[in-house]
């Protein structure tokens, strides 16, 4: 028999808890989105001084228009990152689903709604195939989705001219049911000289919905657990396969929505290479505080990341610089975000063992 009985109250637990009454500063620093918010403030201040046009309603509308599209993709990719996966195919899904909609509603003369429904189904199929491949093979999702992205992009770019007789389909507004689709995906509102697009509402709804899903539902808890430790998630009976498939279906849906939001206002669609779009979304999500390693992230942060990206791009444009500078700027932001992310993770990590 052991000597002295060990009193459970004296176990390390109580001491650790006492040591972890974290101060306010610690709590703020542990917020993953802090880097994006701070950088956003800096960028708005810098460009606000240099380019006053940015801070008018007109400038704001331009920024928000770009931010909305980046934000929708960023939120979807961010959710996937939290679950410990990666999707490089979302950019090509965007273009491919828009092209499919265009082909069905243009040369094939379908109504716009059936065309949209079919392209959504096709996008979901791609998402489920991605998810299925990742779940089945256990290969890194980076490579699996890179493969599907290449297949999709090659097919789209080379097949469209064969079907439509050119790299672009125009005049889609003649398709039956166009007016209701235009209202839902293409309407605008003018406020004091700034033209705000409906994509803004989709972005807000997507961010709020994803944030709620992640932090306030069982599904979100499954995603967090899966990204944090896949082995633990499996041992605790998290439906890893179903959760992964759902996540890929969600990014594919976001891709389809982005394609539709681009197709409807222009009433035309072109097959452009779009692999880089997926990188943009990852950058937005990571700047917003989603850990590349999974297990933690912030949907509001991804929204802030999208805003940051949009302000930087628009600011560089309005300042009259070569727009390609904005990419370099973004790279710097990403680097800073990664470094700050390291600090955040350190704050989340165990206290030094005594």
């Amino acid at each position, binding site marked *: *028999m*052991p000597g002295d*009985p*060990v009193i*459970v*109250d*004296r*176990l*390390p*637990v*109580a001491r*650790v*808890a*006492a040591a*972890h*009454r974290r101060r306010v500063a610690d709590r703020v620093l542990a917020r993953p989105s802090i880097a994006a918010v701070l950088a956003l403030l800096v960028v708005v201040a810098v460009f606000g001084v240099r380019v006053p046009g940015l801070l008018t309603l007109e400038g704001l509308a331009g920024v928000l228009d770009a931010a909305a599209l980046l934000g929708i993709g960023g939120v979807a990719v961010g959710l996937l990152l939290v679950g410990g996966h990666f999707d490089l195919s979302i950019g090509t899904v965007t273009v491919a689903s828009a092209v499919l909609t265009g082909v069905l509603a243009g040369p094939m003369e379908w109504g716009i709604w059936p065309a949209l429904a079919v392209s959504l189904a096709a996008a979901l199929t791609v998402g489920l195939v991605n998810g299925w491949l990742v779940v089945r093979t256990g290969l890194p999702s980076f490579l699996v989705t890179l493969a599907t992205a290449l297949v999709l992009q090659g097919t789209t770019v080379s097949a469209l001219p064969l079907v439509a007789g050119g790299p672009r389909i125009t005049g889609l507004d003649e398709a039956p049911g166009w007016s209701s689709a235009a209202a839902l995906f293409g309407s605008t509102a003018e406020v004091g000289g700034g033209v705000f697009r409906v994509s803004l509402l989709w972005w807000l709804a997507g961010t709020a919905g994803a944030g*709620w899903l992640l932090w*306030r*539902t*069982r599904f979100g*808890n*499954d995603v*967090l*657990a899966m*990204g*944090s*430790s896949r*082995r*633990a*998630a*499996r*041992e*605790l*009976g*998290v*439906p890893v396969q179903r959760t992964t498939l759902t996540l890929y279906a969600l990014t594919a849906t976001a891709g389809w929505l982005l394609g539709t939001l681009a197709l409807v206002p222009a009433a035309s669609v072109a097959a452009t290479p779009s692999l880089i779009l997926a990188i943009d979304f990852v950058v937005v999500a990571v700047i917003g505080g989603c*850990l590349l390693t999974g*297990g*933690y992230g912030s949907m509001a942060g991804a929204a802030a990341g999208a805003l940051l990206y949009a302000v930087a791009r628009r600011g560089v444009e309005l300042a009259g610089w070569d727009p390609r500078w904005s990419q370099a700027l973004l790279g710097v932001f990403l680097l800073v975000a990664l470094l700050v992310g390291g600090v955040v993770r350190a704050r*989340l*990590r*165990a*206290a030094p*063992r005594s």
Partner: protein
Amino acid sequence: MPAPPVLELRGLSVRYGGVPALDRVGVTFEGGCITCVLGENGSGKSTLVAVLSGLRAHDDGDLLLDGVPVRFRSPRAAREAGIATVWQDLAVAPLLSVWRNLCLGAEPTRGRWPLRRLDVDAARETTVRALERIGVTGVDPDQPVNSLQAGARQSLAIARAVHFGARALVLDEPTEPMTIAQHTLVGQAVLGARARGLAVVLVTHNPRYAHLVGDRFLLLARGQVAGDLTRADVDADDLTRLMAGGEELTALTTRLQELHPELGDR
């Protein structure tokens, strides 16, 4: 007619790619009894845990819960049936808060389906109560598990299993040596579970410790039951010898077979 055992394995086999990890194992786990499972690495201990906890389905034979054949689709199904497990790696998600970890998979919710959401307050309260139940107080349920020390993580895993285990408790001890405080915690958990009439399955590497708390001792070797003993049959030294002997003998056999293939598979 006596009540059937809480858990029973009948001719149960599990194969990994044709190699049997458990080979026609027949054993019962009675309520109110602590069964210690002993055996060297690769003897099938982990597979036994995986089968009991629903992580791995068996290929042949039957798994019976209260005399009824069952086949769990996932660890969640096993837990819903009242079989809770403390995993060797503790199965905690490091970046998640204590309450998210404790309630994972059985989170209290509010509202109807499209708007069904976590009842965070209830989950926090459940967590605090589950930890208090095993004698741990002062843990902030919002704290990330990452910030807990090893002992506290183990408390969390045990509290979770004790909270959800209504019929059986399965503990797979970590391979690294545990401190006295950790052993005490495990001991209290298994003794408490026995007092409540649960079937307790304790996979341990420490024969002296096994003898201290165990009522029955199941020795596994190469996926088969090598011994099913009670306290009356053995003392701590016997157990130690049995375990050590088995390990040495196997090592010797393997070595000799390597050097002298003419010995064949004896």
